[in-house]
């Protein structure tokens, strides 16, 4: 097990290293005129050159890269071009928002997805099954930005018009303003993410539950005279959840960098929105820092999923 773990972590580091190279190469090699932009319209070539020098952009790319890696290994991802703030500081401010969004939404989509999946599997091909799967597919076909706007229109705007000022149109309220405010600001973004993602979980839970309910031990449990409820929840669901947990790990890793759209629609200044803003200003250190951090989240989540799998199924460790 230890050997498996070490090999998996080394592979993860290799993957991450390749990503830093690719990302760095892509963004720093591509022609950019950030020095020009920063210098302003009337700047002399000398000023532009000076800014390039100060940002380290006059160095050869390989030197910039080694420099970047060396500092990154010491926990320094560089400074943003405009305010000279450490990138790690900018990320530390944005991360709680992205985490609030991702974790809160994941609770909702797990509840919706697993409940609907179990119901569908217990009554296969029934009206409930068809209804729930149609519901899932409908939201699965919704791009999240569109669903966000639809929710804003009906739940924020229409409710507010009719005198129910329950939800804000966007923005973030930190937990320090009280959990109530925080949750009110997050509900619509949570729903947006959760409804789109719940479909995958409904489908996954349904199929894995149908497999499990056909197993011999479930028949044994039934023939012992256990209540149907107990058979489904205790004996069925427990083992049916393995693929769901796997998918959950992978999705959560992806979400750190995948909530760009939801954050944009609801003006939440999380990691995704920060990248979009940095892109419009060509603030390369911020873009590179966050992209690499988001990749690290994916890689870490994948390792955790593999480890969980290896713990559950010893055959995996051999490969």
């Amino acid at each position, binding site marked *: 097990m230890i050997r498996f773990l070490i090999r998996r972590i080394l592979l993860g580091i290799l*993957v991450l290293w390749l*990503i830093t190279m690719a990302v760095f190469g892509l963004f720093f090699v591509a022609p950019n005129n950030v020095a020009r932009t920063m210098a302003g319209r009337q700047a002399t070539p000398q000023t532009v050159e000076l800014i390039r020098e100060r940002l380290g952009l006059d160095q050869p790319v390989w030197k910039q890269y080694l420099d970047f890696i060396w500092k990154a290994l010491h926990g320094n991802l560089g400074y943003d071009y405009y305010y000279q703030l450490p990138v790690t500081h900018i990320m530390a401010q944005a991360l709680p928002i992205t985490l609030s969004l991702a974790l809160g939404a994941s609770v909702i989509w797990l509840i919706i997805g697993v409940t609907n999946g179990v119901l569908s599997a217990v009554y296969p091909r029934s009206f409930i099954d068809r209804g729930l799967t149609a519901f899932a597919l*409908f939201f699965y076909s919704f*791009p999240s930005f569109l669903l966000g*706007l639809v929710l804003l229109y009906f739940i924020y705007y229409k409710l507010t018009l009719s005198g129910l000022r329950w939800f804000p149109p966007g923005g973030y309220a930190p937990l320090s303003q009280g959990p109530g405010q925080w949750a009110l600001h997050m509900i619509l973004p949570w729903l947006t993410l959760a409804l789109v993602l719940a479909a995958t979980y409904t489908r996954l839970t349904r199929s894995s539950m149908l497999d499990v309910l056909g197993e011999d031990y479930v028949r044994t449990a039934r023939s012992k005279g256990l209540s149907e409820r107990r058979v489904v929840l205790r004996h069925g669901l427990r083992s049916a959840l393995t693929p769901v947990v796997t998918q959950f790990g992978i999705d959560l890793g992806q979400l750190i960098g995948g909530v760009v759209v939801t954050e944009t629609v609801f003006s939440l200044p999380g990691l995704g929105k920060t990248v979009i803003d940095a*892109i419009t200003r060509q603030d390369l250190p911020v873009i590179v820092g966050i992209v690499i951090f988001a990749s690290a989240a994916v890689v870490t989540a994948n390792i955790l999923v593999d480890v969980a799998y290896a713990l559950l199924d010893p055959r995996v460790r051999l490969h």
Partner: protein
Amino acid sequence: MSIGTSDVAAAHEEVAGPVIEGRSPWALAFARLRRDKVAMLSLAIIIVIVVVALLAPLFSAITGHGPNEQYHTANALSPGGLPRGPSGEFWWGTDDLGRDVLVRTVYGARISLLVGVLATALTVAIGVVLGLTAGFLGGLVDTLLTRLIDVVLSVPFILVAVALVSITGPSLSITVLVIGFFSWASVARIVRGQVLSLREREFVEAARSLGSSDRRIMFVDILPNVLSQVIVYTTLLIPVVIVVQATLSFLGLGLPPPTADWGGMISEAQSYYTVAPWFIAFPGAALVITTLAFNLFGDGVADAFDPRTDRLISQ
């Protein structure tokens, strides 16, 4: 008297009833698909969308409005410069610049379908070739390609795509390339997995002993065996690609304005969603109906090729 084959068949018919014809798995799949009402309805909707997209200039001619023409008449913009709702002149209302939402939505279908098909084709082409190569050749090539797949799958796609397009500048070909470049890995992984077991089968050994080259075995002997899986994945990939394209557009990185495309229209409509809901509703509905139709159809195709698979809409 010699007995012809027809006599034999007739004799069989007397004994065992009508002759049982052998049908290929493909014919069976198509037969199943044709019986699937939901899939056929979705296919009909897809065909309608394709026809509408092809006939976009016709809509322009009927309404008399070009897709990028701005109107500043009282019917097109309110005195305050806000979009106007659906009317006799502008059936689906106007946008913030006084352009016809109906005509723009219809033209937008062209972009969605074009990118959907092209980017999916590119994704599948790269994925199949690299997956076949990795799975069939094995060894170092397989190790390297598998690592590459891991890397690509670990990239936070939307983030990198957005950053990349911001460097290159938005265009149709960049959108297609970016989507293809970051999506092939999952296709390659599926194909590789299939090929790993297929290459141990007797028919591959037979082909090899007949002197077939590696390339011939890969593309002539093995490829047809993974094709059904690839087709299923392809139909389910198209709606995903359409959503990704719309998302990139929504984030301002789709096609340069004034080209009409759904994601871009919804992005422009964003600031007017309270005063001009039609401006979001029509392109939004077009987008959802298109992806929903493709998803339902893809689900039917998956079921037709492998009836055991779990599907979202059960019959």
